[in-house]
Structures are given as structure tokens and as C-alpha cells.
């Protein structure tokens, strides 16, 4: 008790400290090297303005988006938010960032590259501090003397470089590497085959011959043997830094890092497509700051002061110097630092063939529709024609869903009526029980009621209330466009889910996932438990080693396994090749294998729990039973079947129920190992599907409904399971 008091006192004093200061918070998604520069710039600002205290908070791009949405919906969040220009569309639509037109004069803005002033529906929402973000072909000068100008040259040069093989048959140095999972790295090629991937209204234009040809070209490029068999950003990046790939397609953000790593490299346009004679058009975008709509009028000038500082020539040049970024401030551009920087000069040549990044929220739907198709083409599970067709179809569908504002129907009245009625009934019940509750609190068992009270109250506040809130959301139309003013609409969300074939296929996969996991968890757990129980001398040591998977934090495990599943460099394939002499498995790029990868990870995580439960259960089985069985001449299997297994039931059944619930709802493993459902959204289980619907597609109400359905499935499922096994579950009562 005393410790608690002390703790609360300490926390209290901490929160009192910052009083007279202006505290401004910035959320950003800058990569590691850029973060360092930002910190220095902000520190300078703080020395010049001692009353200011700037908090920098890093969040990964996706998380920045979802956290900012949640924060702004709750009426708070950071003062400034820094990120890529394509977040402007969604944020502006939700009304959670404020227009900046009234804060800066025209003369002010004229000093900046127009590309850096991000407008949405004719209003300024973001001030960019750097322009670029475009892809280029980087080549290692030690391996490539002259960069290829056309794709034919690229392939022949790549083949020459990749000729030399190592002992295990891989190229010693790859010709080319790039991020093969992200459509951002794909769309420049679409333009190279003639057409843009969106039309002038930012609507998707994907079912075109250009997209088909670009898909086919990507696939052929990968099969030409000049690239790694599987390659995500991390890997391409690492290969290039180590000189293990001669060329890489990467963005301007990476240049500073390569310089620092001491790679002698040059920059060229992505090679001209030989078949068409056209240049691939990388997306040119800006990254910059927007102001939270909740910043109070009193604080606004202070935030603007900081924003001006961040946009100033000096601040931007700091970035240019350290990470070679192209400043948006035109004065900064005229400085020697920019003029004499070869990289930046090359950069403007590259940008001349680029296309501007669209900022409308619809772009999100295009990426989301393209990503799975791109991955499927690269993984060899989809043809180029079908991929282009599906990408267009899905993009249109998602845009429709995103923009639709559902109106309340007559059902809304019914829902509201039911809510009201339930609320009333609850109120009456509580009021009528009040004297009773009071008498119990004062009665003979008051001790019991009082010591239960804290747990009871905190559960109501933290678990029951949010649950009720979620129920309300599930009948509402909360989405991108109704973020600030959602209302109850009726049963539409539930109806849509119930009629969606994808829901049933994901549900099927989830059930399969749960059953397979449990078979392995219980099977391995009981098996190992029984063996350990018999192996006396080393018993303790094995028990210690075997609970390790349970003890390591889950997110660490999941990310480690993801690394281990890499096709060429992952430890698992290395073991398979070296010791078992089998051919490597494409773990993460094919749906079935990726599902297997998640399964293997989760089996690893889950069996120790069942093993410990088994060991506990074995303790309570009287040894005399086994002795008697031995006298009767029972075999080991008979003893297990007739004694051990039935007597373990009382502990195993509740443990299995709990295990089933945990597995069914295990977001961590699926999300982290498959990187959010890759490849092609084929590895989702229901919870990850919900997560994606809520935070990637802005469909809050629908995912609220879906989570209610998950909840109901689990409640019904586990009670049926327990009911069925009831006679044998004696357990301690």
C-alpha cells in the first residue's frame, strides 16, 4: 500500500513540472537518419526560444495514420503532424487537419516549390519541407561503369553481372534488386508502357494494356535470374550496401544512408522501356507538416512560429547537408550546398520524367487494390491479365465503399428503440436492486463485497463501457466522411458482412487456423509433458529450456521468425538447404506457405503453455494407478490411453478453451509474420481482417460489427465446447 502511495506521489509531481512552458508536439514518420537531423534542428529552435519545449514522437507511417485518427477523434493529438503528402486527402476529408491558407501570405508561399504546397479541394493543407521521394536507378560504380539506358541493356548487363555463382548456386552479385511487395515500386513502369495509372480525376485506370504489360515485364525481370528470388525493402537495401547487388531501384531518401555507408554509387533514371521507348515515371511527392484542427487559437501563432522555423532556409539546409534532401525553400535551393551537390542535381533531371503523387483519399484504395495483385504476379499465382482486371475492379469497389455515406434507415429507429428499452430495463433493474446491493454491502458478507468492489468498478469502466460503445458503433455509419458526425443507421453493417463471401472464406481460414494450432499445441504439450515427467535426472533443465518460447515477448518472436522465413537469407531455408539438402521454400510470397509460416511460429509460441498445464495435471494423478496397471501388464500406450489422458481432461479442457480463444484472436503473429496479410491479403484471420478494415480502409463501423460477430462466434463456440465436455470436467470446485 505504501509503495502505491509513493508511486502515485511520484507520478503526480512529474506531471506538475511543465507549467509555464509552451509545449508543442510533433508526430512524424522520419526514418532513423532524418530523425537525428530533426532533433538537432528542434534543439536549435529551443535554444533560440527557451520557453518552448518541442516533443518529437516517431511513429511508423501506418501507425501514424491510425494513431492520429484516433487521437483527433478523441479531440486531442499532436499539434503538428509530419508525413507523406498522400495523407492529406484522408485527413482533410475527416476534418482533422486545418486549412493553412489564412496563416501564410502569398509572398510567403511564393518562395517555395509549388510541389511542396499540398492542396486538396483547392485549400492548402500541408507545407512540405522536402521535394522528391521519387525512385531512381542507383548503381554501384565499382560494378557498373555506365548505367543502362534501356531495359534491354539493363537485362543484358544484369545477366553479365549475375553470371558468377557461389557454391550454393546463387549469383555472387545480383544485377538488380528492388522492393517487390509494394506497388509504389511498380507504378512508374505502368507509365513506361504508355498510360498513367490514374486518370485526371484521380480515378483508377488499371485495367489497361500498360498495366498488363508492366506486370508481365516485372515478372519476366524477376525470372531473368538477375534479381534475388524474393526481395523486400530491407533486403534490397542490405544487398546494395554490402555490394551484393550492382543496381537497386530506390528512392531519394536512401541516398544519404548509402553515402554514409561508403558506397560509391551513381544515380540514373529508371531505364527506358525498350518496347515502347518511353521512360518509367516515378512518383514525385513531398513530405511535410499539417496542423491539427484541435490546436487552440491561442496556441496557433506559436505552432506557426515553429512551422516557419522548420521551413526556413537554415533548417532545410541542415537536412540537405546531412541527408541530401532537396529543400522546398527556393532560397535554399540556390545555395551552394544544393548547387554543388551532384546527387541533387541528378535528382532534378530524374524528376523531369516523374509524375506528381495524387493526394486524394482514393489513392489509398488504388494502392490497396494493386498491392495484392502485384504480389500475386510476382509470386507466380496470378496472370498479368487477370491481375490488372482485378486491381481495377477492387479499386473501384473500395472507392465506392470509402465514399459512401450511409443514411439512417427506418431500422435506425428500431435500433435506437431497442437501445433505449435495454437502457431503461437496466436502469430499473439497478434501481430496484439498489437497496439490496446496499444491504449486501452492509450485511453479514460485507467484507466479501467490499474487497470485490475495486475489481468490479475498474472492469465496468475499462471493459464494459468500451464494449457498449463498440456495440453502438457497430450500428453506425462511422467512416472516413462521417468521422466527426456519425449516427446510428441500422443493421446494414451486419447485413453486409453476412452477405459477403470473403467473410466466410476468412472465417473458414480462422477456424482451420485455430484447430490446427490447438492440435499441435495440445499434442506437443501433452507429449512433451509426459516425456519430461518420466525423464527424472534432466527434468528440470528441459522444462527450463522448453518454456523459453512462452517467456519471450511475442512481438520480438514474431519479427524474428519473419526474418527467419526469408527465402534466401532466412535461417530456416539455410538449414533446409545445408542439412536436409532440400530446395528452399518460398515462405512469404505464396499464400499456402505464408499460412504455414504463421502456423509454425504460433505453434512454437503456444506449446509450452500446454506443456506446463499437462505437467500440473500429471501431478494430481495418483502413482498407484500406474502401479496397478503395470501389475495387470498394461502397455505404455494403454496406460496413457486409459489413465493419463482421461485424468488430464479436467485441466486440459479449460486450458484448451482459453487457448482456442487466444489463438482465434491472435493478431500479433499473423499481422507481424505476414506483414499485414501478405501475400495478397491471403493470410488473414478474422482479427487481422478487422484490424485492416478499421485502420486501413477507414471502415470503423463495419469492423465494429465484425468484432461483435467474432465475439458471438467465440461465446457460442466455447460454451458448446464446454457443455459437450462437461461430464468429464470435474475440476476443483
Amino acid at each position, binding site marked *: 500500500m505504501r509503495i*502505491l502511495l509513493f*508511486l502515485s506521489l511520484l507520478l503526480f509531481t512529474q506531471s506538475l513540472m511543465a507549467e509555464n512552458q509552451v509545449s508543442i*508536439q510533433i508526430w512524424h514518420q522520419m*526514418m*532513423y*537518419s532524418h530523425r537525428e537531423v530533426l532533433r538537432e534542428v528542434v534543439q536549435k529552435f529551443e535554444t533560440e526560444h527557451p520557453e518552448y519545449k518541442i*516533443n518529437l*514522437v516517431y511513429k*511508423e507511417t501506418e501507425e501514424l495514420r491510425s494513431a492520429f485518427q484516433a*487521437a483527433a477523434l*478523441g479531440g486531442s493529438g*499532436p499539434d503538428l503532424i509530419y508525413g507523406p503528402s498522400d495523407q492529406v486527402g484522408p485527413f482533410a476529408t475527416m476534418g482533422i487537419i486545418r486549412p493553412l491558407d489564412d496563416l501564410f501570405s502569398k509572398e510567403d508561399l511564393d518562395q517555395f516549390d509549388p510541389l511542396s504546397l499540398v492542396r486538396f479541394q483547392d485549400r492548402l493543407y500541408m507545407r512540405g519541407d522536402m521535394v522528391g521521394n521519387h525512385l531512381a536507378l542507383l548503381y554501384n560504380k565499382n560494378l557498373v561503369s555506365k548505367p543502362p539506358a534501356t531495359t534491354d541493356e539493363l537485362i543484358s548487363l544484369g545477366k553479365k553481372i549475375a553470371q558468377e555463382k557461389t557454391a*550454393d548456386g546463387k549469383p555472387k552479385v545480383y544485377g538488380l534488386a528492388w522492393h517487390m511487395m509494394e506497388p509504389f515500386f511498380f507504378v512508374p513502369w505502368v507509365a513506361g508502357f504508355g498510360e498513367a495509372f490514374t486518370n485526371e480525376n484521380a480515378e483508377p485506370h488499371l485495367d489497361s494494356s500498360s498495366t498488363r504489360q508492366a506486370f508481365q515485364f516485372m515478372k519476366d525481370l524477376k525470372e531473368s535470374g538477375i534479381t534475388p528470388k524474393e526481395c523486400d*525493402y*530491407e533486403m534490397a537495401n*542490405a544487398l546494395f550496401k*554490402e555490394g551484393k547487388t550492382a543496381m537497386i531501384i530506390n528512392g531519394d531518401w*536512401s541516398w544519404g544512408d548509402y553515402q554514409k*555507408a561508403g558506397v560509391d554509387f551513381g544515380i540514373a533514371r529508371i531505364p527506358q522501356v525498350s518496347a515502347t521507348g518511353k521512360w518509367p515515371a516515378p512518383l514525385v511527392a513531398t513530405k511535410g507538416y499539417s496542423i491539427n484542427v484541435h490546436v487552440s487559437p491561442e496556441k496557433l501563432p506559436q505552432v506557426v512560429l515553429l512551422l516557419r522555423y522548420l521551413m526556413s532556409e537554415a533548417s532545410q539546409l541542415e537536412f540537405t547537408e546531412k541527408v541530401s534532401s532537396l529543400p522546398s525553400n527556393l532560397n535554399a535551393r540556390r545555395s551552394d550546398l544544393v548547387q554543388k551537390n551532384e546527387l541533387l542535381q541528378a535528382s532534378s533531371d530524374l524528376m523531369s520524367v516523374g509524375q506528381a503523387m495524387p493526394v486524394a483519399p482514393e489513392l489509398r484504395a488504388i494502392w490497396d487494390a494493386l498491392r495484392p495483385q502485384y504480389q500475386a504476379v510476382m509470386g507466380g499465382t496470378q496472370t498479368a491479365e487477370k491481375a490488372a482486371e482485378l486491381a481495377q475492379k477492387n479499386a473501384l469497389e473500395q472507392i465506392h465503399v470509402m465514399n459512401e455515406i450511409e443514411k439512417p434507415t427506418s431500422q435506425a429507429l428500431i435500433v435506437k428503440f431497442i437501445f433505449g428499452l435495454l437502457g431503461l430495463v437496466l436502469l430499473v433493474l439497478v434501481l430496484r436492486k439498489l437497496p*439490496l446491493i446496499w444491504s449486501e454491502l452492509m450485511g453479514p458478507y460485507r467484507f*466479501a463485497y467490499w*474487497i*470485490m468492489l475495486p475489481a468490479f468498478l*475498474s*472492469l465496468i*469502466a475499462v*471493459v464494459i*463501457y*468500451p*464494449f457498449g*460503445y*463498440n456495440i453502438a458503433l457497430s450500428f453506425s455509419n462511422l467512416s472516413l466522411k462521417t468521422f466527426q458526425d456519425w449516427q446510428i443507421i441500422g443493421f446494414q453493417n451486419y447485413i453486409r458482412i453476412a452477405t459477403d463471401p470473403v467473410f466466410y472464406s476468412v472465417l473458414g481460414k480462422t477456424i482451420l487456423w485455430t484447430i490446427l494450432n490447438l492440435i499441435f499445441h495440445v499434442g506437443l504439450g501433452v507429449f*512433451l509433458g509426459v516425456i519430461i515427467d518420466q*525423464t527424472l535426472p534432466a527434468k528440470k533443465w528441459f522444462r*527450463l*529450456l522448453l518454456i523459453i*518460447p512462452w*517467456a*519471450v*515477448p*511475442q*512481438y*520480438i518472436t514474431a519479427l524474428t521468425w519473419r*526474418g527467419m522465413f526469408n527465402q534466401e537469407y532466412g*535461417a530456416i531455408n539455410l538449414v533446409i538447404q*545445408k542439412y536436409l539438402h532440400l530446395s528452399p521454400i518460398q515462405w512469404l510470397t505464396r499464400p499456402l506457405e505464408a499460412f504455414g509460416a504463421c502456423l509454425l511460429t504460433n505453434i512454437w509460441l503456444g506449446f509450452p503453455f500446454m506443456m*506446463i498445464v499437462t*505437467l500440473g495435471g500429471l*501431478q494430481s494423478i495418483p502413482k498407484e494407478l500406474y502401479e496397478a496397471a503395470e501389475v495387470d501388464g498394461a502397455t505404455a500406450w494403454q496406460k496413457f490411453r486409459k489413465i493419463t489422458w482421461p485424468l488430464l481432461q479436467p485441466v*486440459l479442457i479449460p486450458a484448451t478453451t*482459453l487457448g482456442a*480463444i487466444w489463438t482465434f484472436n491472435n493478431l500479433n503473429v499473423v499481422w507481424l509474420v505476414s506483414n499485414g496479410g501478405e501475400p495478397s491479403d491471403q493470410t488473414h484471420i478474422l*482479427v487481422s481482417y478487422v484490424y485492416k478494415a478499421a485502420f486501413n480502409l477507414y471502415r470503423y463501423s463495419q469492423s465494429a460489427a465484425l*468484432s461483435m460477430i*467474432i465475439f458471438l462466434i*467465440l461465446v457460442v463456440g466455447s460454451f458448446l465446447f464446454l457443455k459437450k465436455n462437461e461430464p468429464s*470436467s470435474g*475440476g*476443483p*470446485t
Partner: protein
Amino acid sequence: MRQLKKILSLLTLTLFSLFAVFPIYVVLSTSFRGDNAFQSTSLEFWTKTSSISNYFSLFTSTDFLTWMRNSLWVSAAVTLIGVGFAIGAGYSLSRFPIRGKKTGLLILMTTQMFPCTMLLLPFYIVLSHLQLINSFWGLLIIYSATSLPFCIWQLKGFFDTIPKELEEAARLDGCSHFQVLYKVILPVSLPALAITSLFNFMTAWTEYAIAAVVLQDPQLYTLSIGLKTFQSSLATQWGLYAAAAIIVSVPVVILFMSLSKFLVSGLTMGSVKG
């Protein structure tokens, strides 16, 4: 025959132990390697780029110690509050004719079935109404309350196995209810208390999603969020990350191992009957 069986089981156990330890081996080995060497075809533990420099820079050039301190605070407080509340509720439910006990226990169990990620948004709204965003208090409340159902079940299950005669004797000696709980029940419940505390500590020590929403000031970061900053969408500091992962895991693994004796006896899988 007996000998053969023994060798076979030893072999099986060794094989599975290798399976259990292998990923740890990989992380440990990565934590020593140079920054770019996550991707490498060697399975060797120590390569020519290996050194302890990642650990060194972890402590000198990052806020790792701050995160560690924060995590320790939060986890310790959550353990105290969570287990404290759960003792009260678990004991009442185990020993007294509480009204609506059966329903209450069922509701407790069903709270485990809701996908927790969907509660993020409501949590955020509740906490911002209470002005608890960006403070440890918000985190403490959510962590302790969300782990309560499991803890209550767990402790109630264990209390159920303690013979009632023990308390009756103490009551006859003139002990109050509180004294009975404090002097008789808790001392014999040590295994279950140890395990419940361990679970509480683990949750708070490793939780990420909620912490990421609640804590915004880097000075308040807990380890899991801090670690995440080594990663970014396009460039992960693998060496630092692995080193930090090792240091984060070590205390929990040690706790787990030292409590593994209790794990076997204290993890009661109480039946669903009231």
C-alpha cells in the same frame, strides 16, 4: 529396453529444446553483428563483423535506460494493482455466497473473447475524457483492468483448492476476515500469486498497441514502443533492435525460469462451474 526408451526420450527432448532455442540463437547472433549484416547466408554465431558495439550504443546513444525505467515502473505498479484487486475478487467469489456469482464468472470469461484491438478507439475516448492520455495512469488502469478477468479466474481456482478447515480454525481463534485472508490464505497461495503476478508483469512489460496510443511523450515511452523506434517502414536498425530485444527478454525469461516450479503447481485451470 528401458535404456533405449530413456535415450529416445532424451533425444526427443533435445530435439524440441533445439527447436525452442533456435530463434533466440538467431537474435543473439544478430545482436552482435554489424548494422547491415542481418541478411547473410552464414549460420555462424560469431562472424567477422561481430562485436558488442550494438549493446554499447544502445546504452550510450539511445534512451534505452529511460524506457527500461518506465517499463519497470508500469509493470511493477500493474502487478501490484492487478493482483491486489484480483485477490479481493477471487477470494470473495471462491468463499462467499455472492449474489449473481455464476453469471459474474461467466461474464468475466466472456470478456476474454472480444478482440482487444477493437477496444483501442473507445479506450482512447474514455482516457481523453479522463485527461489520462500521455500519463502512466491511463496505462495502469487499462493494463490492470484488462488482465483482471484472467487473474480473478486463476486465483479463484487456486483458492478453491484450499481446504475450508484452515480458515474455520483461524476464525475460531478470533481472526477477522481480513486477517484470515492475509495470514492464512495468502501464505499458502504463494504459487498462484507468483504466477498471477508473472502474467501481469509480462502483459505490462511487452504490451505494445495500447501503449502506442496512450503514451505520446518520448520521455514516457515503455520498452516496447521504444524498441519499435529502431524500426521504420523503410529502414530497420536490426543490430540495435536485436540487442534491445535480448535485453528486454532476459528479465522475463529469468523470471519465468525461476518461477517455473510454481508454474506447474500454481496455474490452476479452474473449471467453469461456479
